[in-house]
């Protein structure tokens, strides 16, 4: 991770290729001409202060928003801006504000994730032929495997809404994985988790990467993101400010300025890094500090 070199290795294939993605809401440009590549087997981090446009960028990638400008392609084919087609193509995601099917069971949630990888329609459901039963059994088996993978197999029959917060986030990941994606987009997967849960999630993301799934992850927890990512991109006010390894981004003055207001004069790079790390604990309170410091400047 941290010891890897700056740019993507050329032996890898590009999974996601977003070029010039721009999203305007009326007068507000939430995302401005962002380019981002993700290669297979890579974990890429996406950071930025609140309101930087990270979630909006995800929505553009997954077809929930139609980008005003720009192009998103997955493994060489341009994606249509329709969420279900994007998922079908192989990009799965989780949501910043958890969006589980709260009145379905844990298992059913994962089964819904299997939707694109199964094709039994109404007729086969009504006729219940052997093909249907086989497909259902296979889906159940796969779903249970995924629940084991995230460690929730013992809660398969619970309602999703009754899970604790951390488990809900994990369930969202399992549901996304059920669609057998080539690229997984995680929007703040550790928000609301305690440090221990965060560490478990970290291992989970590595395990997902080891299955050959590329991961693009938004996070405010800096220790988490710099541990995890092969590469980090920083979005500020809709624009991509820097992109590079953890060291490069951690040391970049503009990033620190974006998070903390102006840099402290004369402070050496290493201390600034420590500053950033100290500030990581609660990103939201960070930004309020950032705001006031920015005004004070």
């Amino acid at each position, binding site marked *: 991770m941290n010891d890897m070199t700056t740019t993507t290795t050329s032996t890898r294939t590009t999974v996601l290729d977003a070029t010039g993605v721009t999203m305007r809401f009326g007068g507000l440009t939430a995302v401005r001409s962002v380019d981002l590549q993700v290669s297979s087997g890579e974990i890429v981090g996406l950071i930025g202060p609140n309101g930087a446009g990270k979630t909006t960028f995800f929505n553009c990638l997954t077809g929930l928003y139609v980008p005003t400008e720009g192009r998103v392609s997955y493994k060489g084919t341009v994606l249509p801006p329709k969420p*279900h087609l994007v998922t079908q193509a192989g990009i799965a995601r989780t949501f910043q504000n958890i*969006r589980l099917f709260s009145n*379905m069971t844990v298992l059913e949630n994962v089964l819904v*994730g299997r939707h694109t990888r199964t094709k039994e329609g*109404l007729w086969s*459901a009504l006729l*219940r032929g052997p093909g249907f039963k086989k497909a259902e059994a296979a889906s159940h088996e796969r779903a249970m495997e995924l629940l084991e993978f995230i460690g929730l197999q013992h809660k398969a*029959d619970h309602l999703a809404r009754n899970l604790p917060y951390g488990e809900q986030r994990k369930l969202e990941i399992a549901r996304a994985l059920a669609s057998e994606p080539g690229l997984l987009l995680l929007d703040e997967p550790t928000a609301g988790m305690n440090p221990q849960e965060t560490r478990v999630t970290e291992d989970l993301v590595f395990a997902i990467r080891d299955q050959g799934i590329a991961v693009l992850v938004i996070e405010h927890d800096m220790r988490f993101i710099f541990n995890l990512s092969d590469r980090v991109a920083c979005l500020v006010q809709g624009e991509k400010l820097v992109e590079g390894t953890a060291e490069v981004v951690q040391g970049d003055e503009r990033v620190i300025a974006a998070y903390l207001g102006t840099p402290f004069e004369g402070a050496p790079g290493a201390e600034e890094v420590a500053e950033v790390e100290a500030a990581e604990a609660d990103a939201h309170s960070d930004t309020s500090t950032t705001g006031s410091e920015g005004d004070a400047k």
Partner: protein
Amino acid sequence: MTDTASSRTTQLRVLALAGGIATVASTFLSWTYTAEFPGDLTVYGYPGGLQVLTLTAGLLIALFALSALGVKGLRWLTPTGSTKALQLFALGALATTWFTVIAIAVELGGVVNLEPGGFVAAVATVIPVVAAFLLPDDTRKATRPKELPSWAEILIIVAAFAIGLFVFTYGIDTEYAELFTGYLLTVGFAATALFRAGLIARLNGLTTKYRMIAVSAAFVAAAAFPFTQNTDQFTLIAVNILIFATVALGLNIVVGLAGLLDLGYVAFLGVGAYTAALVSGTTASVFDVHFPFWAAVLTGAVVSLIFGVLIGAPTLRLRGDYLAIVTLGFGEIFRIAVGNLDGVSGPRITNGPNGVPNIPDLNFFGYNFGESHTVLGFELGSYANYYLLMLLAMILVVIVFSRAGNSRIGRAWVAIREDETAATAMGINGFRVKLIAFALGATLAGLAGTVQAHVQHTVVPEMYVFAGPVPPNSAFLLAAVILGGMGTISGPLIGASLLYLIPAKLQFLQDYQLLGFGIALILLMRFRPEGLIANRRAQLEFHETDQLDVPDDKPGAGVSTAKAGA
């Protein structure tokens, strides 16, 4: 201290028992002088009419009081506690009896019309209420029931459905409004009491265990209904209930599973009925064709399907409320359009307000549905034939509902209902999946309509209104689904039965019917928003009693997702 408390509890339970027995005894007395009050309550030594209901309630009180006292062999009656159940039974007896006594006094003009028996009954029913409400609450978690041999468990299921059939038949066969009101009171309180005692949950456990047997028993019980009837009078009511319930169940796919609000659903029933009527060979039809019934059913279903797709395709792309408005509009357009296709305002197809009369009776291989037949020594009237045919249609809809609901497509419907954005992000084509649900609902309604046309022998536009005094209409269909329980199978069936029977039996309510209906719905939404029958999901959705969802059986069996049926 605890000793005195427990002896007091025992005393109160004995008092409740005594009250129950006194209530029973009072029904053997005469309650009034004249036979003018329906049901003849004048006879000593022989309970009649409403007294039978009081008698039943009294027996139930005594039975459950004995169970509360720990009498061996009766403890299984109260797995989750006896006090609440006793209170409800006692209230049921009180309500039924006091209703009867007051009805006698009011209808015959004064308290003088009461014989001492009436007063005895009125006092006797107060005793268990007082006793039960002084009892400490003993609600507990049900213990794992004793293992019974499977033949015994199956016998219990069969007995339960037999009792169900008996209770239902009794309700349909009530001859006068007072008796039906008393019946509603008794059954309502008794059902709630059984629920609180934990017996219903116990029975549910058994029916899930022997699913096939339970489903078969339910349909056998339903099929047995016409054999209990001597005349066609109440069978006609039963046929209409079946039609109403079947259509409500179809609507439940659209509303309960997929979460689409369809306010003009009855129009699809009308499309099916009109189609069947026009190809039935009646002289009133402009088409000079006579399709065999199977072809008429197919035609009706397909035409409904086409209308479903035509309405659904443009609107289902939009979110939420548009569908409700468009379907509401479609329902009205259908009614007005068939009212105008009379050769004057438009082309002559449907005879306008006169409708299509003289739809011939069905005839399967020489078996004429319009005539009586003797089956197994029982005389089955014309409507019994249609009842059994409609029952087949309902079985079909039940199968469609449970199979579709418990499959990839059914999960997609529920996912769309829960969170459309997340569902599409999981790869579900929202439009497509919603259109399938909508079109399937339309098709099933059309199918029911083809039978309805033959049952009624006439179709007129006024049968297919948004809201009206006679179900099925769109508002009542929706109410049956919500009242009964969204997303369940038995819910809409029970909802439809109640919503049909109450206006049919309580004719005197005519003017206040909709008012009462509205009050009932408000009360329901306040106290039991998930409907009479809750599916497991909704049960948890509305009552924050967490951990209720922890499955009772071993966690390893975590592969069953069948929650569509309750």
